[in-house]
């Protein structure tokens, strides 16, 4: 026989439910306070006389920007190098990310309609497929989660100064990002067409090439172009650790306290990024 739940039980239930948000809020507050403390946030510091003076000096030193012909001519080389590093880095990133991303696409290699029949009741074969899948995913995550800056640092040590470590750093870390996003894009495509292809006896490559790629191409291209835009920004920064490009000049000007040169460099970087945005927009429209 069912008894209606007592009022006390109701209240208890309500109370635990009300407790959870409170706890969560307390946790958030604790994290906030802890972070505030750890990050040594002292807004008062900004208002102190000498830090105000320092900032004023910095800002006064920025004007007028250095637009002398000599300096501008000096920048042509690094500017070109920055573009080249970003392009080559993106190409390398595709070369790294595409194969790993394909192996890491579960709907292609492991689960879903395409693999149901092949893998049902064949644990050995399932393992043989799952292992490369897990390896590809793990590798992509390592590539991606170590920032490109750190990669560049290490490549400078491993292969020396110059544009090459910049290319390798962007290639590896952006390869990780591209691979992950490629596999996500491919996994989100409808698989019915692919199943129809498979039913006609198409191999996996053909299913990929004729079934998946045509569907996903606009998204793949669009994301790759977006990454190229990011790569331009990144390659300008990587110069800080000696990986060529504009960053090296920014660092030099900073260390020499030539802030009027820094302004020119930042302006140049802005123009470059705007130009690349424009260009990649054009390409996107042309392809998609």
């Amino acid at each position: 026989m069912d008894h209606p739940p007592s009022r006390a039980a109701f209240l208890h239930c309500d109370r635990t439910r009300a407790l959870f948000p409170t706890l969560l809020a307390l946790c958030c507050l604790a994290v906030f306070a802890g972070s505030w403390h750890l990050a040594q946030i002292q807004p008062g510091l900004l208002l102190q006389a000498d830090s105000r003076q320092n900032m004023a000096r910095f800002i006064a030193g920025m004007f007028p920007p250095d637009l002398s012909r000599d300096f501008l001519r000096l920048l042509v080389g690094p500017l070109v190098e920055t573009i080249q590093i970003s392009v080559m880095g993106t190409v390398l990133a595709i070369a790294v990310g595409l194969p790993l991303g394909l192996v890491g696409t579960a709907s292609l290699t492991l689960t879903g309609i395409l693999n149901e029949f092949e893998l049902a009741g064949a644990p050995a074969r399932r393992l043989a497929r799952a292992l490369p899948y897990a390896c590809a995913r793990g590798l992509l995550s390592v590539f991606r989660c170590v920032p490109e800056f750190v990669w560049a640092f290490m490549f400078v040590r491993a292969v020396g100064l110059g544009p090459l470590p910049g290319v390798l750093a962007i290639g590896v870390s952006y390869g990780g990002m591209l691979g992950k996003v490629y596999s996500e894009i491919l996994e989100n495509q409808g698989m019915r067409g692919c199943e129809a292809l498979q039913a006609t006896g198409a191999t996996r490559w053909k299913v990929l090439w004729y079934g998946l790629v045509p569907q996903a191409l606009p998204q793949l291209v669009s994301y790759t172009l977006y990454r190229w835009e990011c790569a331009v920004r990144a390659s300008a920064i990587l110069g800080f650790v000696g990986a060529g490009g504009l960053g090296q000049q920014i660092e030099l000007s900073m260390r020499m306290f030539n802030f009027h040169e820094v302004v020119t460099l930042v302006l140049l970087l802005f123009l470059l990024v705007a130009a690349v945005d424009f260009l990649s927009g054009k390409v996107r429209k042309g392809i998609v």
Partner: protein
Amino acid sequence: MWAAIAGLIAWSWRGTRFDLVGLLSADGAGQMLAYVRKLFPPDLSADFLGKVVYWSLETFAISLMGTLFSVAIALLPVFPASRTLAVSGLLFERDESGRPLRALRIGCFLGARAALNLLRTVPHIVWALLFVFAVGLGPFPGVLALGLHTGGVLGKLFAEVVEDIETQPLEALQATGASRLQIFVYGILPRVAPQLLAYSLYRWEVNIREAVILGYVGAGGLGQQIQIAISLFLEQKLLTLILAIYLMVTLVDYLSACLRRRLL
């Protein structure tokens, strides 16, 4: 078009002296392998691990506070920086305010946009150098740098989100006599809040990586230690630090994905 792309790639290939054969040859690969071999085994002594935990928390704190700061910066000008709220559109159809007031509003709009552009254009590492110069070494300049740069990025995104919502419900609110502030609080905020939150969380994931970079110019945390470890050839410590970065980044990605799923 394809020819142009191929040309661009070929030009870059030559320009960066990218040498695939040299890289994969016994010499090039050997050099890299030798470096990798030096990284092992990672330094896992309890003493060092304790410090690594502290630095990791510091990096986490920088990224979190920087992101919160940037959200505050981005929210401030969201009103004047949104075209539909400040300048034109359905809300202004029956606008009877005089010329000077209109000019003032357009001025505010342009000013807010220009300020956001400025914040965004200056790379965070340059901001960091400025603040290291002003307030000295430590995580605080890192927080300020992250906050300003990301504030510019988020500000633009926030304004775009606000511009993209339908204006009809807002007009209905306006017709009831709601002030602009009330329209914002009751008509706009509830609808854009999830998206703003999603963007902020996404930027947090980016910022944990950036926080590492900022360490290079003296803004504390793991980045600074990595710079030290690389400069002093402490490769085994370097590997531990890289593992810590990997964990932190994965943790923040996971946290942000969780929060997004719960809150949206």
